[in-house]
C-alpha cells in the first residue's frame, strides 16, 4: 500500500500546473518529448516568450499520434498536434478535426508549400545508410540484383517503413511489385520501428538500413565518427516533411497560432538539426550546424502529394505484402 501512496504522490507532483498561466497542450511523437529530443529546449524557448505553460504529450509515433487524436475526437485535450507527415495529412484532413493556419515563412523545403491546414517544421530525405567504403548500389534495381543485405521497417507500424513503400511506388509505379519481389532476398528482416532496424544495422546484421540522409550527421557531430554514409540513389529520394496543425476544438486558439508562428522562427528551427537530426523547415539566420554540409544531396526529390499518398497507401501496402509474403 505504501508503494501506491508513494506512486500517487509522484503522479500528482508531475501534474502540478501553475494555476495562473494558460496551458498549451501539444501532442507529439515520443522521441520529440524525450530528454534527448527537441522537446525540453522547445518548451523552455516557447515558455520564455508566451507567458504560458507548454505541455508536451508524447504518443509513440506519427501514426499512433493521429489515432490518438481520432480516438479523442472533438473532446481532445490537444490544442496542437505536431509530428504528422505528408503521408498522413490526407487522413488527418478527412477527420475534420484540424483548423486552417495563417503562417507564412520562407521555407527551405524541397517542394513548394501550399497546405492551408498544416505547417511544416522539419524535413528530410529517406535514404539507406551504409558503412563508409562499402560497395553500395546506385539504385533499387542494382540493390535488388546485388547481394547487399538491408534491414527495413514495416510500413504498417513505422513511418519510415511507409516512406520506403511510397518511395518505391513513386519511383517505379506499376513496376513496384516486381522491384519488391526482387528485393525480397536482400531483406534480412523487417522491424516494428526505426530504432530496432538501426540497432540491427549497427550490430552488423545487415549492410544497409533504411533511415535518413541526415543520419550520418548524428555520428559525425555527436560522436565524431565519419564511418556512416548515406547512399545516393539515382531514382531520386523520397522526402518526409513533418508538420503540425491547430485543432479546431482548441480553447487556446490565439496561443496555438502563436506557437505555430514560433515553430517556423529561428528560436525553434535552431533546435531541430541537432536534436531531431532533420533539416529545419526554415533555414535559421546562422545557417545549418557544421557537419551538415557533408551530407549528400539527392539528384531529385520524389514526393507524392498528400492526396495521392493517401490514395496510394493501401494499394502499395497490398502489393508489398503480396511480394514479400513468400
Amino acid at each position, binding site marked *: 500500500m505504501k508503494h501506491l501512496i508513494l506512486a500517487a504522490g509522484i503522479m500528482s507532483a508531475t501534474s502540478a500546473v501553475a494555476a495562473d498561466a494558460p496551458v498549451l497542450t501539444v501532442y507529439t511523437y515520443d522521441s520529440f518529448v524525450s530528454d534527448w529530443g527537441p522537446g525540453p529546449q522547445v518548451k523552455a524557448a516557447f515558455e520564455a516568450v508566451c507567458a504560458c505553460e507548454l505541455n508536451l504529450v508524447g504518443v509513440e509515433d506519427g501514426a499512433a499520434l493521429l489515432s490518438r487524436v481520432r*480516438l479523442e475526437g472533438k473532446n481532445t485535450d490537444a490544442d496542437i498536434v505536431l509530428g504528422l507527415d505528408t503521408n498522413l495529412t490526407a487522413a488527418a484532413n478527412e477527420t475534420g478535426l484540424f483548423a486552417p493556419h495563417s503562417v507564412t515563412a520562407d521555407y527551405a523545403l524541397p517542394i513548394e508549400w501550399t497546405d492551408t491546414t498544416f505547417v511544416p517544421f522539419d524535413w528530410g530525405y529517406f535514404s539507406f545508410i551504409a558503412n563508409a567504403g562499402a560497395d553500395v548500389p546506385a539504385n533499387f534495381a542494382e540493390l535488388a540484383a546485388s547481394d547487399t543485405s538491408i534491414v527495413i521497417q514495416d510500413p504498417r507500424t513505422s513511418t519510415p517503413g511507409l516512406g520506403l513503400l511510397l518511395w518505391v511506388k513513386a519511383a517505379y509505379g506499376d513496376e513496384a511489385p516486381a522491384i519488391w519481389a526482387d528485393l525480397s532476398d536482400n531483406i534480412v528482416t523487417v522491424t516494428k520501428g526505426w530504432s530496432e532496424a538501426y540497432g540491427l544495422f549497427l550490430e552488423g546484421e545487415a549492410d544497409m538500413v533504411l533511415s535518413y540522409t541526415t*543520419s550520418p550527421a548524428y555520428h559525425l557531430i555527436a560522436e565524431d565518427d565519419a564511418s556512416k554514409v548515406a547512399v545516393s540513389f539515382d531514382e531520386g529520394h523520397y522526402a518526409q516533411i513533418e508538420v503540425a496543425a491547430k485543432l479546431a476544438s482548441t480553447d487556446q486558439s490565439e496561443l496555438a497560432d502563436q506557437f505555430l508562428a514560433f515553430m517556423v522562427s529561428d528560436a525553434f528551427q535552431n533546435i531541430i538539426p541537432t536534436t531531431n537530426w532533420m533539416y529545419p523547415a526554415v533555414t535559421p539566420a546562422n545557417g545549418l550546424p557544421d557537419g551538415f554540409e557533408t551530407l549528400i544531396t539527392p539528384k531529385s526529390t520524389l514526393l507524392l502529394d498528400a492526396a495521392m499518398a493517401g490514395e496510394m497507401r493501401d494499394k502499395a501496402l497490398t502489393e508489398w505484402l503480396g511480394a514479400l509474403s513468400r
Partner: protein
Amino acid sequence: MAWRTKPLSPYPGIGAAVLVAAFILGTLVAVGWQADGSKGFAASDWVALRFTLKQATLSALISVFLAIPVARALARRRFWGRRVLIALLGAPFILPVIVAIFGLLQVFGRSGWISDILGVFGLPPIRIYGLHGVVLAHVFFNLPLATRLILQGWQEIPAERFRLAAQLGLSGRVMFRQIEWPMLQRVAPGVLAVIFAICLTSFAVALTLGGGPWATTVELAIYQAFTYDFDLGRAALLSAIQLGLTVTAAVIALKLSNQAGFGAGMDKPVQRWDSVSPIRDFFWIFLATGFLLLPLSSVVFSGLVGLFELPSLVFCAAGVSIMVAGASTCILLVLALPMAAAIGAGTKGLVEIAGILGLAASPLVLGTGLFILVRPYVNPSDLALLVTALVNAIMALPFALRILAPAARDVIVSHGRLAQSLNMSGRVFFVRIMLARMRPQIGFAAGLAAALSMGDLGVISLFADAQTATLPLQIYRLMGAYKMDAAAGAALLLLCLSMGAFWLLDRGGRRHAEV
C-alpha cells in the same frame, strides 16, 4: 455455526476473478463501442491467425519438452552455485523484448558469436530469420518459466514419496511412472497453456526474427488496425479472437490436467537415491545454461561500456520503474492470493480462466480501453504510473496463479480438516496457515511480478507525458535518439534491477525452505 465443507470461503477469490474478467472484457467492449464502421475480418487476418497459432503451438511444445529434462536434472542434483543458476536461468523471461532480441542476435545473428566461430572454419554464417528464429526466441523467453514451474512441481512432491520408492527398490523408470509422471500430468498442461498464450500475443519478436511480413501475428494486425487503419471495430474483433483462443487453450489444459495432489508430507528435504548417472542430468543443465546465459552475457558485455556514462535521467526513470514494480506486485498479490485460495478450495474453472485472460489480452486494447474509460473523469496522463502498475499486475496474474494455486490446494488438503475440526475461521486459516505455508511460492510469484513489471514497456507509452518515464521507455527513447551505447547500458541496469527484485523477493520467501 453452519457446517463448512472447506476451511475457507472461495468468495473473495471469485470476487477478484470477476473483477479481473470485468476489467479485461470491459476494456475490450469500450474499444468496440467506440468503433464506427469496420471492414471486419480481412483475408490477411486469416494468414496472421494461422501463423500465430503455428508459432505459438510450436513454441509452447518445444519449451515444455525441453524444460522437463532440465527441471528433472535440477531437481535431482545438488551442486555448488545451483541456487544462483536457477535464479539466473529466470532472467530471459523478465528481459524487455528489445533487449532480448539484441542479446539473441549477438549470439545467433549474422555477425553473432556462432557465425563468427563458423567463419573461422570457413563456414557461412547461420541464418536465424524465419519460423525457426521466432520459435528459438520464444523458447529462449519461456524455457526458464517452464523449467521453474515444472521444477516447482518436483519440489512439491513430498520427500516421503521418494524415500518410500527407494525402500521399495523402484528403478528410475518405475519411479518416473509412479511419482514423477503423475506430477507432470498435473503441471505440464497448465504450463503449455500459459506459454501458448504468451506466444499468441507476441509481436515485435515474431516480426523481427520472422524476417518479413509473412511473420505477421494477430497482435500486429491489432496494432495495424489501431494505428494504420484506425479501425477500432477490427481491433476489438481480433482481440476477442485472441481471448477466445486462450480460453480454449486454458479449458483444454484444465481438462487434460490430472488434479490429484500428492497429499501431505512432513516437509523434510528431498533426498534422492535413484541418481545413477549424473552425466545425462549435467548434459541438460549445461545445454540450458549455455542457451540461456550466452545471450544474457552479451547483454552484459554490450551494456558495460554505456553503464558508466548513463545520464542521470536514466536513474530517475529507474526509480520510477522500481515504484511501479512495487505497486504492481502489491496489486498482484491482493488479486492472486484469494484467487489461488479459491482454486485450492475447489472453485476451479472460472477463476482459472479469468486468471489466464490477462495473458491473452492485447496490451494495446487493454490500454486503449482503459484510456477511453478513464478519460471522461481524469486526465489519463495523471494515472500513467498507476495504470501501468495495474496492467502489469493483470499480465503477471496467470503466472502467479500457476505458482500459487497448486500450493494452496496442497495446504487445504493437508491442513484443512484439522483447521475445521478446530473450528478455525476462514480468515485465520488464510492468514495463519495458508500464507505461512505458501511463503516460498508467494516469494516466487512476487519476485516474478516485480521483475516482469520492471522490464515491461506496458501501456506507459499510451499514457506517459514528457515527465513520467519508466526505465524501459527511456531505453526506447535513448535508442530513438541514436544513443545505442547508452541504451545498452540502461538495459544492463534494468537487467540488474529486475534480477535484484526477483532475487530479493524469491529469496525472502525461501528463507526457511529448501530450494
